[in-house]
């Protein structure tokens, strides 16, 4: 119980630990950059596109954290359902402003 480091178990899904570390590091940096970009873009329609890209980046990060269920959820919600809702709201709001 509580075994943290193991190198003896080989399944079809394990890759060597240094490679996994490098992958997770790269994805974490990309996610941080994506979050900064989402906040710094002020125009709402462009921000929706960047939010969609950020959702896909997060999904790949969750996959690197060995969580395929959360990946599926984040992919369907963050790349499809949320941008659709946001764009519909923006259309409604923009129409009223005219």
């Amino acid at each position: 119980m509580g075994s943290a480091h193991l190198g003896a178990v080989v399944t079809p899904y394990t890759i060597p630990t240094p490679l996994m570390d490098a992958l997770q590091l790269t994805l974490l940096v990309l996610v941080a950059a994506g979050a900064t970009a989402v906040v710094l873009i002020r125009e709402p329609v462009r921000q929706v596109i960047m939010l969609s890209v950020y959702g896909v980046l997060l999904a790949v990060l969750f996959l690197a954290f060995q969580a395929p269920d959360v990946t599926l959820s984040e992919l369907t919600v963050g790349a499809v359902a949320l941008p659709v809702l946001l764009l519909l709201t923006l259309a409604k709001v923009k129409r009223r402003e005219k």
Partner: protein
Amino acid sequence: MHIFPFVVVVYILAVGLYGVVTSRHLVHQIMCLIVVQSSTYVLLLGIGYKTGAVAPYFYDIPVHTPAVDPVVQALALTDVVVEAAVTALLLAIAVQAQKRFGTLDPQELVQLKG
């Protein structure tokens, strides 16, 4: 690599909060709120990770293979879908706010007292 994921979690939270505080458009503010929520998913999954372990699905691997924590994955999974519905509720309220006050600027909405 021991604390770098947690540093990224705190950074995403801070950046999202900065976006919420200095926003001039309600929909932009709601999207920054989505970014703040996403930092908690990364935190949950980062806590449950075990070096060298696989995903906790034993369909085709032997049952005693070391796997990552499934409880935090269950929490994060329902979290993602439910926050989308709550964001939809916030968007509906933003639409109603624009009808009632005529503006979508949160820094002007503060001064309009009914």
